[in-house]
């Protein structure tokens, strides 16, 4: 048996990070990087509790032969100071890319999101990876992610030997603390925008783990890939599937109410994100299927089921 590959995984202290590490450490030697404290990591996972921007991060590369980096540690906390947010994301990611090149890491896999395309009324049903990243136009907080996606893309030519893969994932559902999972977990009736019922694409957290592994294993693969679980449904049907009801509210009223609640810290959803339940924003996943041979195991309804069943 060949030796397990050394994988540096960022953002392991979040719920998604912890879930992924548990899946990944069976196949890889996982080295975690996250400045936050964490609990319940598998014993064989080495956790460096360092801020990603610190010079000490380079020691990880000096002391270990890193084969690949899975960069999941994007900060998306809208209550956080914007400048700090931006600094952490951009500087941190640039550092990682520089080390990857310097220490001849083979692969750099970055977890982005189909949200970077931005929900728009003029979107095609399925957006290809070549679509312009328009999310920042209406919703400034996602500009960080758009910037990061473009930053990583720029290394395709800056570091041609590094195999860079950007996975643009649909809304990730699971035992997570992210906006789509929290939205679907709201108690019935769930507010929706009156007169709008866009189709949705999601990804089961296990499918995401498989996609990361598949991206690592596909030799020589480079580029950007949209990934999602099987099938699409309108929001109304997703809510119906959970045996919950809808509370349709006219767009301006919902925006106003939500922005007030956001200011009063009664809601974790910023009003600008409402476009996600108004317009479509789905990725065309053909490329991932053809080049990465990524075939999702779960359907959209499995992903909804996973909201509450997986407990750890």
């Amino acid at each position, binding site marked *: 048996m060949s030796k397990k590959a050394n994988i540096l995984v960022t953002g392991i202290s979040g719920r998604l990070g912890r879930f992924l590490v548990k899946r990944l450490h069976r196949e890889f030697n996982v080295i975690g990087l996250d400045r936050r404290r964490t609990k319940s990591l598998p014993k064989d996972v080495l956790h460096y509790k360092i801020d990603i921007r610190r010079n000490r991060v380079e020691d990880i590369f000096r002391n270990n032969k890193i084969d690949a980096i899975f960069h999941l540690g994007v900060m998306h906390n809208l209550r956080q100071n914007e400048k700090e947010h931006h600094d952490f994301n951009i500087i941190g990611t640039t550092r990682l890319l520089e080390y990857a090149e310097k220490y001849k890491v083979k692969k750099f896999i970055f977890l982005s999101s189909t949200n970077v395309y931005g929900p728009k009324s003029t979107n095609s*049903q*399925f957006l290809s990876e070549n679509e312009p990243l328009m999310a920042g136009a209406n919703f400034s907080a996602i500009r960080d992610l758009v910037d990061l996606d473009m930053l990583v893309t720029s290394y395709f030519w800056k570091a041609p030997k590094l195999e860079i893969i950007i996975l643009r994932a649909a809304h990730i559902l699971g035992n997570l603390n992210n906006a789509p999972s929290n939205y679907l977990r709201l108690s019935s009736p769930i507010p929706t925008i*009156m007169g709008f019922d866009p189709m949705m694409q999601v990804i089961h957290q296990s499918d995401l783990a498989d996609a990361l592994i598949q991206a690592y294993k596909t030799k020589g693969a480079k580029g950007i890939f949209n990934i999602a679980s099987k099938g699409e449904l309108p929001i109304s049907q997703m809510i119906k599937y959970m045996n919950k009801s809808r509370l349709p509210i006219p767009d301006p009223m919902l925006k106003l109410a939500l922005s007030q609640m956001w200011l009063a810290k009664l809601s974790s959803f910023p009003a600008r994100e409402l476009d996600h339940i108004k317009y479509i924003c789905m990725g065309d996943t053909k490329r991932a299927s053809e080049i990465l041979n990524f075939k999702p195991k779960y359907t959209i309804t499995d992903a909804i089921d996973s909201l509450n069943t997986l407990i750890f």
Partner: protein
Amino acid sequence: MKMLDSFLNRYKDKIGNIQLELNCKGYDSFGLDKDFLAKMVSLAEPFYKYYFRVETYGLENIPKDGRVLLISNHSGQIPIDGAMIGLALFLELNAPRFVRSMVERWVPELPFISTIFNKAGQILGTRENAKQLLENDNALLVFPEGVRGINKPFVDRYKLAEFGTGFLRLALQTKTPIVPIAVIGAEEQIPVIANFKDLGEKFGLPALPIPVIPAILPTKYRIYFGKPFYFQENEDTTNEDILSYVNKVKDTIQEMINNGLSKRKHIFW
């Protein structure tokens, strides 16, 4: 209630027989809702049969299966012509076909209407959507005149407005046959005295037509389906070739319109 239910669902089985790629909830990936479509068809069918009393000619020109681009003139202020073409292919063919049409770019902004269009299988008119639908062997209805056609003033009725070239490039790229269609009767359904285009644009609409009377008149619809075109592309195909193909389609439709008009004795019957 029971009567209404059976009225609304009387086409459920017929729609169920059409081959559509649906997921477990009866939706396709473009948002078509089979049960919703069955209800829409049931509601629209009386208008097709008893209000506009649609007559069709040349339905045998529609390929029985596989991808096809249906290219038609566009008129009547609101797109009833599209619905009638769709119903014709569903109600009159022995093996019914489901027609998808491409909607204007501002439609998805409209509450309710966007949802209704979507659930009835109508898609935003982007190149990527059209390409994917044809690659999946759908029948796709396109009005190359767009809003230029549907909002034309009464004096210009039955004169085709300028055709875009997108549909032809798409047909060449996806190797899709083109069936030309002429719709007679839609131009007179809502006679318009003026079009306050500038005012309409302030409300985000492409036009603001003012009708003579605020009603849709029961004009008689006649729909002519022409012989399919099979254009082919090779390395030497130039822009001029494409323009000449477009004009060929346009001239054919204009000729079909003229023929239809000369045979028509009255607007209403």
